[in-house]
């Protein structure tokens, strides 16, 4: 099998058996990235030179019989993770010139594990978007059809993995930004439990919702990476002190006896008929493996998008106040005075969607509106979280679609923000409640991939990975690659 078609696990074996070196692998993938860049625009920065140096160092480790399971494996980081000495733009003009002076904890951990960074992937500006069209660096194209969006905000990471430019990439998920692009690009995407993976050095959007995770070709590869990036970090005040289980061992968990909850509200209006069929086929597959299906209800689910579009903009307006044109980032030309410096640097440095969310957040937090919007949204957030808790008292895992439809056309939803926001109807609940969730490919509708979403209880990543792996052992949806990138 050609190198780019192999999974992380297969590449690791090949490196150990000396079938190829990390330098050879890195060179082959850098070539692919450069060839694909004009068509996909998946990368903001390609770090070819440092990648080859890292690969050479990994080869020396492997040659000496040292190194761990990930030594020499290439990957890409979403451009939201700070990378020391490498431009970290967050998809924004505001940070176009920002060279991070330190590494995010996720980056530090993956570096220490011996991985090789091939570059930084394109994304919606400050992770605000569901189509990758808000990036200052232009939209990413869907590898299955260049007229369609790859999803967002981690669209560059998803497109890069789907086109097999990299075997895996890091990503972040505030309202669906790992799972939705995973679904639209036909790959595996894991958003861990809130607090499971450190947010240190991950540029903040909405701090009570943001969580780092991975986009990969399989649940097995997601387990490999999660084992490295998960864990307590004293530098993140919301990081959870809890032991990291052996996620690779969890892949072997039997599906027999697994209690699957079918979320009634996921199958009501809005879900496209053909997408629903693929989801139901996948659920039937799980019952054949010995799982049972029970219908459960999340009665407040319809309110998750409105609650999110109060909470997330409120937190964003506060987090993005740091971009003031003084200490780092974009500064306007010839400011008249300090207020002019702030207002024009921010007005010119941020794109339309980011400004819209800052404005929304500023409004809902302003005097006289706080109770009506922000407090109310926080109360609804608890109702939604309680709904999930009641569901998990009955079942082990929830399953349903990741998105209402497969990938949509570039430009189709940019004129109306509400239409775009509603694309995240099935994913936002897990963020509000802080739950782990995963999307895996489960079929195609008119040659476009469909994603099955699995949602687990807090710290239930092992259940998700075990179920996903059992499904992927018997199906080959996750091994399909767009013809152009075979």
């Amino acid at each position, binding site marked *: 099998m050609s190198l780019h078609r192999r999974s992380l696990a297969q590449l690791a074996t090949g490196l150990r058996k000396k079938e190829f070196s990390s330098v050879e692998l890195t060179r082959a993938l850098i070539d692919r990235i450069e060839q694909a860049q004009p068509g996909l625009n998946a990368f903001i920065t390609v770090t070819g030179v440092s990648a080859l140096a890292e690969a050479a160092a990994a080869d020396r480790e492997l040659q000496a019989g040292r190194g761990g399971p990930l030594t020499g494996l290439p990957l890409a980081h979403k451009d939201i993770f700070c990378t020391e000495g490498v431009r970290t733009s967050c998809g924004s003009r505001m940070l176009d*010139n*920002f*060279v991070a*002076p330190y590494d995010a904890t996720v980056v530090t951990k993956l570096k220490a594990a011996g991985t090789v960074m091939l570059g930084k992937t394109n994304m919606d500006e400050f992770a605000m978007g569901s189509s990758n069209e808000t990036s200052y660096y232009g939209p990413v194209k869907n590898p299955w059809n260049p007229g369609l969006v790859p999803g967002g905000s981690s669209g560059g990471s998803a497109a890069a993995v789907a086109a097999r430019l990299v075997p895996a990439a890091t990503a972040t998920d505030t309202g669906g930004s790992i799972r939705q692009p995973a679904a639209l690009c036909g790959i595996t995407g894991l958003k861990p439990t*809130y*607090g499971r993976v450190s947010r240190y050095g991950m540029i903040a959007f909405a701090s009570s*919702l943001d969580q780092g995770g991975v986009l990969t070709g399989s649940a097995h590869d997601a387990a490999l990476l999660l084992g490295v990036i998960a864990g307590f970090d*004293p530098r993140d*005040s*919301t990081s*959870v002190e809890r032991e990291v289980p052996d996620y690779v061992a969890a892949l072997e968990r039997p599906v027999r006896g697994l209690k699957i909850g079918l979320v009634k509200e996921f199958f009501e209006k809005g879900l496209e008929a053909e997408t629903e069929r693929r989801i139901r086929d996948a659920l039937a597959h799980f019952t054949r493996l010995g799982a049972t299906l029970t219908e459960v209800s999340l009665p*407040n689910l319809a*309110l998750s*998008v*409105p*609650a999110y*579009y109060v909470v997330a903009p409120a937190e964003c307006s506060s987090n993005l*106040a740091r971009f*003031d044109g*003084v*200490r*780092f*980032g*974009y*500064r306007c030309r010839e*400011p*008249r*005075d*300090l207020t*002019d*410096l*702030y*207002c024009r640097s*921010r*007005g*010119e440095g941020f794109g*339309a969607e980011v*400004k819209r969310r*800052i*404005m*929304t957040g*500023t*409004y*809902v937090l302003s005097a006289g509106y706080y109770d009506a*919007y922000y*407090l*109310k*949204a*926080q*109360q*609804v*957030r608890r109702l939604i*979280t309680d709904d999930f808790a009641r569901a998990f008292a009955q079942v082990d895992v929830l399953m349903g679609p990741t998105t209402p439809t497969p990938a949509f056309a570039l430009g189709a939803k940019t004129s109306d*923000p*509400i239409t775009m*926001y509603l694309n995240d109807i099935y994913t936002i609940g897990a*963020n509000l*409640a*802080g739950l782990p969730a995963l999307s895996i490919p489960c079929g195609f509708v008119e040659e476009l991939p469909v994603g099955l979403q699995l949602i687990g209880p*807090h710290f239930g990543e092992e259940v998700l990975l075990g179920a996903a792996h059992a499904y992927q052992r018997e199906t080959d949806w996750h091994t399909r690659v767009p013809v152009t990138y075979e």
Partner: protein
Amino acid sequence: MKREQIESIAHLARLELKEAEVCAYQESLTKILDFVGELERANTQGVAPMAHPLAGLTQRLRPDNVTESDQHERYQVNAPRVEAGLYLVPKVIE
């Protein structure tokens, strides 16, 4: 949303908006606020607001010791204007 409201929010958020943007945000913020207005339907009487997804997680405190060294030169490489280790901004006091 009235035009003056958009201008006042933009000022609070320290965002300079172009004329076309003011109109665009007038329209889209009106829509967004209508949309999030659905929250009113929920009966939240007696429901404690939830600020954080993990119950029981308390803010950790650390001992008040110096753990970072002075690296201002390194950090100021990213600053638009610096002089003698100080960030430069337009004159504030005449």
